């Protein structure tokens, strides 16, 4: 699947959250959507998921608009994982994950074999099998984040849009979740993840899109995140390295005046 966004403009009041964004997202790639707070990452993700009206611009899914594709088809092909998600009612974890199958199910018919298999696979992939009977309200923040990731995986969409999927996770589960997203991309799905951890982003992503003030300032392989881009967008310098063929970046110092870190 190929999603193409052209000239996206979104304004909240007078302030533009997106000020003319062009980008293309393709299956088989793990794309990191990065940028400082307020850069427009969540807004861009919501536009692509079909959840946010735009003031200008358009999004095409394999050349078709969301309206041409239809709500149900879009829901089957594009999955969305909200930032710091939660559950309003304390459902069991496996019931939460099964909600990801709603786009595939006919209303009021029991889940199919494929539905059950997708739920089991998602529970296993997100490592929440042993939590399946627990009410989601009794989980820790990181466990809950994994359960909700499993819910998004259960959709088995062509494109997974995940807003900060690893922010609440401990280091072990951050590494495992990033590896999982990369593996999903290797298997053919497109994955777009909003990330704040530049080390994880540069190490695991095939491609990085850097947003700042509602514009794309860099788009390319992790090497596109140059010192100049880091200084301009984040106001930081970074250490760089490579291990086992994987490049990484560690944010190190603030650029310019102010407290030395």
């Amino acid at each position: 699947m190929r999603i193409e966004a052209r000239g996206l403009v979104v304004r909240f009041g007078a302030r533009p959250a997106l000020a003319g964004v062009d980008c293309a997202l393709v299956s088989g790639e793990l794309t990191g959507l990065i940028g400082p707070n307020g850069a427009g990452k969540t807004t861009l993700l919501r536009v692509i998921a079909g959840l946010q009206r735009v003031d200008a611009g358009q999004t095409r899914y394999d050349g078709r608009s969301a309206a041409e594709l239809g709500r149900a088809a879009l829901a089957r092909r594009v999955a969305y994982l909200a930032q710091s998600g939660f559950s309003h009612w304390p459902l069991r974890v496996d019931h939460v994950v099964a909600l990801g199958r709603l786009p595939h199910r006919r209303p009021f018919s029991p889940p199919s074999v494929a539905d059950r298999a997708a739920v089991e696979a998602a529970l296993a992939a997100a490592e929440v099998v042993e939590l399946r009977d627990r009410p989601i309200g009794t989980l820790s923040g990181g466990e809950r984040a994994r359960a909700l990731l499993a819910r998004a995986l259960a959709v088995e969409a062509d494109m997974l849009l995940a807003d900060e999927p690893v922010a609440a996770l401990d280091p072990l589960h951050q590494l495992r979740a990033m590896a999982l997203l990369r593996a999903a991309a290797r298997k053919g799905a497109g994955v777009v993840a909003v990330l704040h951890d530049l080390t994880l982003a540069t190490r695991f992503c095939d491609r990085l899109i850097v947003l700042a003030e509602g514009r794309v300032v860099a788009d390319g392989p992790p090497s596109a995140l140059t010192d100049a881009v880091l200084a301009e967008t984040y106001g930081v310098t970074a250490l760089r390295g490579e291990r086992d063929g994987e490049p990484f970046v560690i944010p190190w110092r603030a650029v310019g005046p102010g407290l030395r870190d």
Partner: protein
Amino acid sequence: MRACAADAEVGYAPLVAALAALALAAALASVMIGYARLDVPAALADAFAGRSSAAAVVLEQIRLPRAALGALVGFSLGLSGAALQGLLRNPLADPGVIGVSGGAAFGAVVVFYSGLAGVFALAMPLGGVAGAIVAALLLYALVGRGAGTMTLILAGVTVNSFAGALTALALNLSPNPYAAYEIMFWLMGSLADRSLPQLWLALPLTVVGWGLLLTSAPALDALTLGEDTASSLGFDLGRLRAQLVAGAALAVGAAVAVTGAIGFVGLVAPHLLRPLVGNRPGRLLLVSGLGGAIMLLVADIVVRLIPVHPELKLGVATALIGAPLLYGLIDRMRREA
């Protein structure tokens, strides 16, 4: 988030079957119990044979319509309460929160006050239905398509308060104390002296309302994870809000129009039963409807067994039974949390 007893969940089909059996039993008990002694089998035999004996008339014109209306109204209240709690994701929501019951009550009061009530028997319930529809349209004009959940709650509370104020105004301006007295009593809700015409008026509206509410189950399940997630799963939330407001307006509007305002059933029934369906809002709908029917039928039996005259009003009884139930439930939730 409230702690919950996930292990309280039971099989869905057995639960529905058990509640349906209980509702049927309560309806049968409601037919058996009344002020006059009634030989039900004999009355049934007469009714089927087409003999209009006194017993058959009591059964056909009084007992059966009263039990059927009790089940109908209780189901509407329990179902609407569960649907609105699911839509608004707020355990405090009940049919009153969107202003429909207040509108229905005011519509009926206007008819009573204008003297139309004396012209034909169904004038008051028709006025109630009209009031519910006006309230729902008013809500819609204020909210419009695509407005958020918070706007819907605020608009509903506004419409409900306004309808309540207008009802109070009608009482305030009442030409004679007896009229005010009658209105007040009617507002407390009752199934007494309702017969077949009221049942036939309420039934079609109610059934359409139930259809709209029950088919929202998958969307309400999806809404558990918030509006963005529900939209991303393919549900049109603007349509869902319209569907549920219309469904509740028809089901509850018809109920209030026929029986007067009956509180607490729509609030308590979903709460009591939610743990038994693993907190799943979609599965709660039918279950809560059945629970509401049982609650109302039992309350209506209680008011006829308590030797108080005039008869204790049903709305008073449901609040007297419902409030301690809810209090105990909240206390248990607090201790589990």
